[in-house]
Structure formats: structure tokens, C-alpha cells
């Protein structure tokens, strides 16, 4: 088990390194420069030449790459051209925002999705199951950002129930430091979290319904019923436990969904997280912020897979037995 984990971690690091290298060379190969063209009227060619030299962009590509990797090994992610601050600081500001949003969305995703999936499985092929199944399929098929726009239109623009974007009221709550400001933050969080969470929940419900129905037909469930256990206990204790196994994979897979979904949803709601930072950096050719974002996102994807596999092995004794005998 330990050897397996070590091997997986090493492979994960190699994957992240490959993603970083790929991103580095792709953005450097793109036409254009992070700084204004030299004909620009406002900035003298002198200044631009100095900026290019300052950031080491006049050296050869391989030299720049070697320097970047050497700095990376020391934990230095470079400096942002546009923000004039270390990339690590910019990421450290953005990551908590995305993380909170992802956590809230995951919470909605899993609670709503699980409840819906179990309910649908219990009411299989009856009206409730069919109606909810079609609604879930429809919500799951929406472009996430479009659902965000519709929620904004209805709840913020028409009903004035929610703010139209941002993370907190900039005048009353520049920093979250009081009870009222925590409420303000949650108020701002509701719509973006709902957008991501509902689309995810629709997928989770479909998945969970299928998993429950697969389990409920097995013989140990018949045994449980034959013992005289009530339906509630059969479904919620005996069936649910085994039906939760594939759900663990879903937890791991939810990581990339939340991060990629977050790119668009953060743009819609002006949520200052990783997605917004990455999109702006790409548009501004802010090389090291882009590679920094690539490091963070690919690490999250790899980590999600790793956690899912490890949890799976921990939760299912049958997998461990197979590992040992192999």
C-alpha cells in the first residue's frame, strides 16, 4: 500500500511537471509580447527594453526555462508583469476565494444530489422519479455560465434579492471582520455556489440513482428483506453503504469540474478566484501567472484522482485483498 502511494505521488509530480513545461513553451511560442509594441507613443522604447531585460525575456527560451524551473524548485513562482507582485502572492489571494466557492458548491452538489438520487431510486419509474429525472437531465445539460446568467437575471436583476457580483460589499465590508460582513459574504456566495452546485447535483443524482438501483437488486439486499428489516433500514443502511462506493470516484472527479466550471462562473459573477485570475492573465500575456495557474489546477486534478483512489482502497476491503494477492 505504501509503495503504491509513493509510486502514485511520484507519477503525479511528473504529470504536473509535464503540464508546466507544456504551458511554458506554448505561451512563449505564441506571437506577441507581454509588453507594448515599440511604436507605442506613451512608453519609450527605452523603458520597454528595460522591462524586457528586467524580467529576463531577452534571454534564450531554454535559458528562461532553466531559470524558471530552478526558481520553481526553490518555491519561487516568478513575478507577475501586470500586477507587479510575486505570482505566489496573487495565487495566495485567489485560491481561498475559489476554494470557498468550490466547497460551498460541492456541499450543494452532494447533499442535493445524494438526496435526489436516493429518492429517485426508491420511487423508481413512478411519477416522482420520471419528473425529477428529466429535470436533472435538463439542468445537467445547461451551459453552467448560462444558468449563472439566468439566476442573476431572475434573482438579482428582477427580484433584487441578491447582489449581481463580487465577493463582498466594497464600501460596508472591505474586509470580512464582523458578523454582518460574514452574512454579506454568504449573501454574495449564494448565487455562484448555487450555479455550480445545481449543475453538479443533477449529475450526482443521475449517478447515485443508478448506483442504488444496481445494489438494490443484489442478493444480500434480498437477505436483509427476508430477515424482516424495514424498507427504510434496507435502503438507507444496507443498500446505501455499498452504493456510496462509486460516489467516492465522483468526489475525485468533482475537483476538475469545479475548477474548470469555475473559470466561466467566476467570470460571470466577478468572483476574484483562480478562474478569473487565469483568464485575465492569459489575456494580458502574464506568463508566470498563467504557468502558476497551470501548476495549481493540474495539481488539484492529480490530487483529486489520488485521493479518490486512496479512499476507494480504504473503503473497499475487496480492493485491498486484490492488491495483496497481486
Amino acid at each position, binding site marked *: 500500500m505504501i509503495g503504491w502511494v509513493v509510486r502514485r505521488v511520484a*507519477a503525479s509530480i*511528473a*504529470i*504536473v511537471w*509535464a*503540464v508546466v513545461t*507544456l*504551458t511554458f513553451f*506554448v*505561451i512563449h511560442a*505564441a*506571437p*506577441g509580447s507581454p509588453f507594448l509594441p515599440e511604436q507605442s507613443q506613451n512608453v519609450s522604447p527605452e523603458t520597454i527594453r528595460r522591462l524586457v531585460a528586467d524580467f529576463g525575456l531577452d534571454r534564450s527560451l531554454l535559458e528562461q526555462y532553466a531559470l524558471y524551473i530552478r526558481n520553481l524548485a526553490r518555491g519561487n513562482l516568478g513575478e507577475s508583469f501586470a500586477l507587479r507582485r510575486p505570482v505566489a502572492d496573487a495565487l495566495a489571494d485567489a485560491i481561498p476565494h475559489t476554494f470557498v466557492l468550490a466547497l460551498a458548491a460541492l456541499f450543494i452538489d452532494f447533499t442535493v444530489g445524494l438526496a435526489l438520487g436516493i429518492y429517485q431510486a426508491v420511487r423508481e419509474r413512478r411519477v416522482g422519479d*420520471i419528473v425529477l429525472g*428529466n429535470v436533472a*437531465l*435538463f439542468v*445537467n*445539460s*445547461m*451551459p*453552467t*455560465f*448560462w444558468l449563472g*446568467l*439566468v439566476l442573476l*437575471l431572475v434573482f438579482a*436583476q428582477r427580484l433584487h434579492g441578491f447582489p449581481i457580483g463580487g465577493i463582498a460589499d466594497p464600501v460596508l465590508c472591505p474586509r470580512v471582520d464582523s458578523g454582518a460582513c460574514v452574512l454579506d459574504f454568504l449573501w454574495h456566495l449564494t448565487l455562484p455556489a448555487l450555479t455550480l452546485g445545481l449543475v453538479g447535483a443533477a449529475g450526482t443524482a443521475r449517478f447515485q*440513482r*443508478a448506483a442504488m*438501483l*444496481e445494489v438494490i*437488486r443484489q442478493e444480500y439486499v434480498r437477505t436483509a428483506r427476508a430477515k424482516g428489516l424495514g424498507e427504510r433500514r434496507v435502503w438507507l443502511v444496507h443498500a446505501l453503504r455499498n452504493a456510496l462506493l462509486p460516489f467516492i470516484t465522483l468526489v475525485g472527479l468533482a475537483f*476538475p469540474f469545479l*475548477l*474548470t466550471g469555475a*473559470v*466561466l462562473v467566476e*467570470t460571470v459573477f466577478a468572483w476574484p478566484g483562480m478562474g478569473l485570475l*487565469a*483568464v485575465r492573465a*492569459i*489575456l494580458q*500575456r502574464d506568463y508566470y501567472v*498563467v504557468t502558476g*495557474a*497551470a501548476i495549481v*489546477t*493540474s495539481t488539484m*486534478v*492529480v490530487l483529486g484522482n489520488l485521493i479518490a483512489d486512496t479512499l476507494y482502497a480504504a473503503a473497499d476491503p475487496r480492493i485491498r485483498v486484490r492488491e495483496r494477492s497481486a
Partner: protein
Amino acid sequence: MNVWNWVALGGAAVAALVVVAAVRRRARASVSGRRFFRHPTAAPGLFVLAFFVTIALAAPLVAPYQPYEQIDIDHLQNDAPSTRYILGTDPFSRDVWSRLAYGARISLGIGALAMLVAMTIGAAVGATAGYFRRWVDTALMRLVDVGLAMPRIFALLVVVALWGHIAVPVLVLLIGLTGWFATSRLVRAEVLSLREREFVAAARAIGAGPGRVIVRHVLPNAAAPIIVSAALGIGNVMLLEAGLSFLGMGVPSPAPSWGNMIADGLPKMAVAPWSATFPGLAISLVVMALNAVGDALRDALDPRKEAV
């Protein structure tokens, strides 16, 4: 909308019904065909797909205006849906319904073509890795690991944004090139078990080379997972195109795609919600139909998975 547009629209619905009926009649001959139509959402899903494909093909007949035509830029911006403009007009005074009909060509076309690219690469890589195993397999699957670790929209944004506006065929190619990783894993798993079967040994024994064995004997037997993931994948591509176009990096305006129609309508969404909501509804509806058909296909083609 004049009378002839309505007649054409009705004709499109009838044509879609005819297509579904024809497919159902042919499907009755096979076990998996019957199983496909036993799935409750299969026929409605197929109908929605056939309907939108018909509209895309017959766009000049069902659309009263040209998709680029600015009807009256001074007086007709953001006009509410009416009998004349059934889905209203957008901020540039263009008929939303006409753009939706012509946009179906671009959105569905990008979905289908990008998926074709992705499936071809995915099947080729997966079959090569699974058939030759050893270092070929290791190298290709590590490449797939890297591809899967990079969020697709992020990778596409980097390329599209940095190279500036990109022609639609290149966009299709790029979306396809970033979409084959998961498919290749599926195909590889299938090929790994197929290559041990007797008919493959028989083919090799009569002197067939690896290329012939893979293309003529192995891949046809691995078609089921490829078809299913293609059906589900087209929906994904359409959502991706919508997202990219929304950020202004997909299909360049004024060509109508359902994604950039949402982006065009966005600035006036508060006063004229129709120009951004209807294309989003169209995307949701088509993706839903694709998912429904994909589910039914999986149940029909993969007997190991019990239909639930």
C-alpha cells in the same frame, strides 16, 4: 416570420417525426435496436436531434431574415418577441430566430466535427496502446495522463487567446485535439481484452499485419464504447464552444453560433433577456437530447450494464 417560414418549421417537425419513425422501424430488426427504443427518453431525444438538424439544413427556409441582416439599426434593437420576430431582435437589431436557425449549422457542425476528430485520435491512440502494450502503451498512456490533468477550457483559452482570432476550422481541430484523452483510455481497455481473443489470433495466423488486425478485426468490436462516448462528447463540445464564445474566444462574431449569441445578448440581458436566453435554451435542449440518446445507446450496446 411569414406563412412560408411557419410551413417550413412545421415541415421540419414532420420530417423529424418521419426520421424517428424510420429509425424505429429499422431498429426493430435487432435486439440492441429494440433495447434502444425501450429506453423512455430515446425516441424524444432522437426527435429533438432530428428536429434541430433539419432546422440547420433548412435554415434558409425557416429563417425569415439573413443571420447578419440588421433589420433597422435605429428603431429595432432589443425588440420583444412578437409574431414578426418570434424570438425578438438582439442589440444589433438582428432577428434572434434567424440567427438561431443559422447558428444551429455552426454549433451542431462544430460539435459533430470536433467529436469526429477526437474520436479518430482517441480510437487510434487507444488501439495502438492496447494492441502493442509494453513501452508504446506506457508512453501513450502517460501522455494521456498529462492531457487529462490539464483542464480543457484552460488549455484552449491559452492557445486561442494568445494566437488571437482563430478561424473556425482551426477551432474545431483544437477542440478535437484536446478531447480525445478519455476516449483513448476507454478504447485501450477494450482492446486489451479483445487482442487475447481467438479471432485475433486467427487473423494473425493467416498473416494479417498489425494495422490490418487493428482496423479490420479489433476496432469494429470496440465500436460500442466509441459510439457512446461520441454521443455524450458532442454535447460536451457544444458546451465548451458556448463557454469559449461567451468569453469572446470561440466563433468570431458576426457569424452566429449559439455561444456567441449569448455573448451578444449579454450586455442588454437586463432589458432584453430573450437574445441571451433562447440560444442557451437551445444548447440545453440539444445537449439534453444527446445525453438521453447516449444513455439509451449505452444500455442498448453494452449488455453487461443492466438497463436501469
